[in-house]
Structure formats: structure tokens, C-alpha cells
């Protein structure tokens, strides 16, 4: 082939490639654009067919209405309380457990780790009815406990951290023992600082999943005192006969924005964290 033609071919190929990628980005991002666009429209504007992309004017009152039609701040507070409680409490449970499984020498370690693996494999979609009945019997349904306690022993977290702790050379721990460091100090001053990125990954994944969670709070909560934001936003839909898409989308914006901000700030770390989550 003539080298100039080949070069031209190559050039065209590159532009097609770029064009396709831009197209993919637009398609994938479109639902987000649509949420934003709709959230600023008037109700009659949402009913036009074919729909318009750019709203006539920015109707901020949709957001005010969305806020007004639910106890938004209560839901927000509940969501934050649950997500942060799980975040903190799980560390207290899983860090020592991962350390014990990685470094401890005790009988039945394999068997006990089997329980962790089982916890990792059995989804809560299988066990939710018995767990609900358990909380019901204990009279704990009208508390935050059902939203927090089942997530504290984060089996995935134990698994990931254990993996990391096992990679730390034995000699470093021995050196610390020779330096008269207690087990707690070895964990706190040496192991955890070394495992910083894994600890961060676990926290990030747990926060995102709790913030977004719909299934679990739907089952475990029955009053606004304990409902979280996703439940609140989902309830906007059945509160009226005709769907007020503009207000619904405004409500969803409130749910999405915090996560999108986190993603904008830390998109590389988040993608890395999720890559870990897939490599089991």
C-alpha cells in the first residue's frame, strides 16, 4: 500500500476511534444529563413530546418542593449516621479479626476462617427474612441496630485485610517484638500504617454501599425516624398519582450529588477500590 494512503487510513481510523469513544461517553452520561435537565423543568414542560433537552428556565423550586415533600434532613441524618457508624464500628471488628487470621496461631483457625468465607458468600438476600424475624423478636426493629449490626463483621474487609497482613514479612513483626512492642502496638503502629490503602479501600466501599443501599433499609425500617435517604427518595414516587418527574429528578439529584462529588475528587482511588472488590 502507498505509505501516504496508509497514513491517511491510520488518521481516519484514529478519528473514528475518538468519535466512538465520545459517543459512548455521551450515551452513558445521558441519564445523568436527563436527571439534571428534568430537575429544572416545569411540570407541563416534562409532558411535552418530543421532550426538550434544555429547560426554558431553571426552576429551583422543584428542589424546594422535593425537600418539602419528605423529611429530607431527617433522612439525610439517618443515612449519614448509619453509613458512618458502620464505617467506624466495622474497623473495630475487622482489623483485629484480620490480624488474628493472618498472624495468630490457634486451633481451629481454618474452621473459623471458613465461617468468614461463608459470610462472604451468603448474600443478605438469602437470609433477610430470618434476620428480620430475629430483630423483631428482640424488639429492635425500631432502632438503628438492624441497619448497622449486620454490616459490622464485613467479611470482605476481613478477607482483604488478612490478605494484606499475610504479605507483611514476619521479620518486621519479630523485630517489633524484640523492640518490646505489645501486640496492640504492633498492630497499631506497624501493621495498620502499612495496610493504610486497604483500610481506606474497605471504608470507601462500605460507605458507598451503605449510602446507596435500598433493599436492606426497605425491609428493616417502617418509620421515618429510621428511614434512610434512598428510601425517602423512592417514596416520592408513590406519594402522588401522576408522576411529577421534575420533582422526582430533583429529589434524586440530592441523593446522587454527594456520591458524584466524592467520585469527582477521588475517581482513581474509587475505581482502584472497586477493582480490589472484584478480585476475590
Amino acid at each position, binding site marked *: 500500500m502507498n505509505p501516504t494512503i496508509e497514513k491517511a487510513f491510520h488518521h481516519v481510523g484514529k478519528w473514528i476511534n475518538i468519535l466512538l469513544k465520545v459517543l459512548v461517553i455521551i450515551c452513558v452520561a445521558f441519564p445523568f444529563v436527563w436527571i439534571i435537565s428534568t430537575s429544572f423543568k416545569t411540570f407541563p414542560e416534562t409532558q411535552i413530546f418530543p421532550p426538550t433537552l434544555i429547560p426554558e428556565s431553571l426552576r429551583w423550586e422543584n428542589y424546594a418542593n422535593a425537600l418539602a415533600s419528605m423529611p429530607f434532613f431527617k433522612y439525610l441524618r439517618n443515612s449519614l449516621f448509619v453509613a458512618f457508624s458502620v464505617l467506624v464500628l466495622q474497623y473495630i471488628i475487622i482489623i483485629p479479626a484480620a490480624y488474628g487470621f493472618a498472624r495468630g496461631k490457634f486451633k481451629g483457625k481454618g474452621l473459623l476462617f471458613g465461617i468468614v468465607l461463608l459470610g462472604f458468600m451468603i448474600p443478605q438476600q438469602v437470609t433477610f427474612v430470618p434476620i428480620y424475624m430475629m430483630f423483631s423478636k428482640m424488639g429492635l426493629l425500631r432502632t438503628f441496630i438492624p441497619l448497622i449490626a449486620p454490616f459490622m463483621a464485613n467479611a470482605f474487609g476481613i478477607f482483604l485485610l488478612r490478605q494484606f497482613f499475610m504479605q507483611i*514479612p514476619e*521479620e*518486621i513483626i*519479630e*523485630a*517489633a*517484638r*524484640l*523492640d*518490646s*512492642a*505489645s501486640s496492640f*502496638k504492633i498492630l497499631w*503502629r*506497624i501493621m495498620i*500504617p*502499612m495496610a*493504610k490503602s486497604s483500610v481506606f479501600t474497605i471504608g470507601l466501599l462500605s460507605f458507598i454501599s451503605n449510602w446507596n443501599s435500598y433493599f436492606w433499609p426497605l425491609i428493616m425500617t417502617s418509620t421515618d425516624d429510621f428511614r434512610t435517604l434512598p428510601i425517602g427518595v423512592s417514596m416520592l414516587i408513590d406519594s402522588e398519582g401522576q408522576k411529577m418527574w421534575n420533582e422526582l429528578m430533583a429529589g434524586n439529584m440530592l441523593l446522587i450529588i454527594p456520591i458524584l462529588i466524592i467520585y469527582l475528587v477521588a475517581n482513581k482511588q474509587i475505581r482502584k477500590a472497586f477493582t480490589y472488590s472484584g478480585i476475590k
Partner: protein
Amino acid sequence: MSSITLTNVKKVYGEDVIIPDLNLVIEDGSFTVLVGPSGCGKSTTLRMIAGLEGPTSGNIYIDDQDVVNVAPGKRGIAMVFQNYALYPTMTVKQNIEFGLVNKKVPKAEREKLIKEVCEIVGLEKYLSRKPGQLSGGQRQRVALARAMVKKPKVFLMDEPLSNLDAKLRAAMRVELIQLHKRLGTTFIYVTHDQVEAMSMGDNIVLMDKGIIMQRSSPRDMYNDPQNVYTAQFIGTPPMNIVRDLLLDNYSIGFRPEKITLNPDAGEDMFRIKGHVMTKEHLGSEINYSITTEYGLVMAKLEQEVADDCDVMIGVDYANLYIFDQNDNRTELDANIKKALIAVSAQ
């Protein structure tokens, strides 16, 4: 400053007996090297002295105190590991300081001690760096400083130089010898490298399969091996052992560097006929491998002979070592000498 005594120490891992029954006294202030092939139990011995592992049975004393139930941090020892085992998230200073902080040494004294050791090992400029930003030699110094700052009664070193390149290793060897002289503390040093053992220790313990094969000064290790194992472990190339030459399964041994090729006819020497197979020039010396009717013999000489030729191997009777049927050293007495003269080639 203290001595270490191991009595009837046994170590078993599951089914494997690593150390069957070890008795060893390490004198106060000595530079003792535990040497042997991998799996000989030298590291296990060191780790039991450190308290990182407990003996299956037996006693370990530091001075006169039985330390078997004493935690590693409370034994007054310090250890330098092969891979240095620095705390990667701490700075050089925090690494050195960690043990002192754990022992609740007051800050002013800590600063003084750190300054002192850092001057000795030359780390003043790197105190705020993390181990990841240091070269191999610098990490080695941090590991040493971390051990020294505790002013231990005993220094334990587990192959501390094996991760360094050859040049740096030679330099550090000299530094460690000087450090030992300066501190006057007991050093126990583990290595698989006989050259390192010979050049550093004033006292060498050669181990194999958890048993002490010989324990002596470097000079005696070389000149006066008590068994075939020691004779072949020390020296490169190893001592030639010729078996089945004498009655009663006696073996004779001679070092490659003590051989004369084609000696004068008149000299009173033990002789074997051979044929030069290969020749390796090492610079000042030449390594020959020579086939004989008793097997391959190595020679290391300045003397040069032609390739691929028949030679006569000559060894002074004074340089012959005799080993009995158990491979233990025995004296070259008149009877044996007579027998040797009888088999010696003319």
C-alpha cells in the same frame, strides 16, 4: 555483656527434628559465628536465643538467668535481620527510636542515644527519610543502629550482609569487626558463607542437621578439622577426600592448595598418578581438576602444567588428614604411614 548457655536444647517442628540435642556455651564478648548449610538449624538456634521461637525442650540461659519463658523484648538482646525488617511506614529516626519508646526511655536520653549511634554508623543526614528512600547499605546501617541503640547484652545477626552486593559486603564485614571491637559485646552471627564465617568470627560453630560438627577458632577450623564434614565445608575448593585407599574404610584428605604437581623424585611425599582434565585460571592461582584411579582430585596452585597431560600428585605427609570409618579425624600413626607408603605411587 553476657554469656549464653544452651543445654539439651531440642527443637521439633511437627514430625521434623530440627535440633536433636544441642549443648553450646557462647562466651561473653566473643564474636561467634554459626555457620552451616541451609536447614542446618543455625537460624533456629539464633531465633531460640532471641525468643522468637521456644525450644521443644531444654534450657537457654543468658548469663545465669533461664530465659525460656522471658519475652523476646525483655532478654536484653538485639537482632539484625537478613532483610533488615525496617518498619516501612516510619522514618529512620522513628525506626531507631521505636524500641526505646516502648521501653519508656525519657525523650532527652533517647535523643542522646540516637545521636550517638547515628554518628557511629553515619546516618545523621538521613534521619527523616523513610526506609524506601534509602540504598541497601543505608538500610543495613539503620538496622544496625536500631540494634545498637538499645545497648543490648547480645547482638544477634541473621545473615545480615547477604542482601548487599559483593563490594559493599566486604566493606561491611570490616565495619562489623570494628564495631565488635569497639562495643566489646557478645556477637552471634549466622551465615551460610564459610568465607564470611572464617573472616569475621573469633569462634566458629559449624552445624549440620542440628548437630554441632566442630567448634573452634577459624585457624583450627582450617588446620585441624575434626571430621570429614568440617574438612570439606571449610576451604574452596573443598578438601580432597580419597576413600577406600587404606584398610578398614579409612579415608585420607588433603587440601587442594597443599598439593605439589610432579614433585622431585627424592622428596618424602605421598603420591598419586593422575591426568589433568581442566584448568581454570583464577589470576594468581590455577584450579586443576585431575582424574585419578581414586576419583577426581582438585588442586589449587601457582605452578603451571600443560593441559591434558599425565601428572604425579604429591602431598607432604604432614599435610595429610586421616579419617576413620565414622569420618572422624584420627592420627597419622606409624602403622597408617606404613600403609600409605605402600599404596603411594612411584
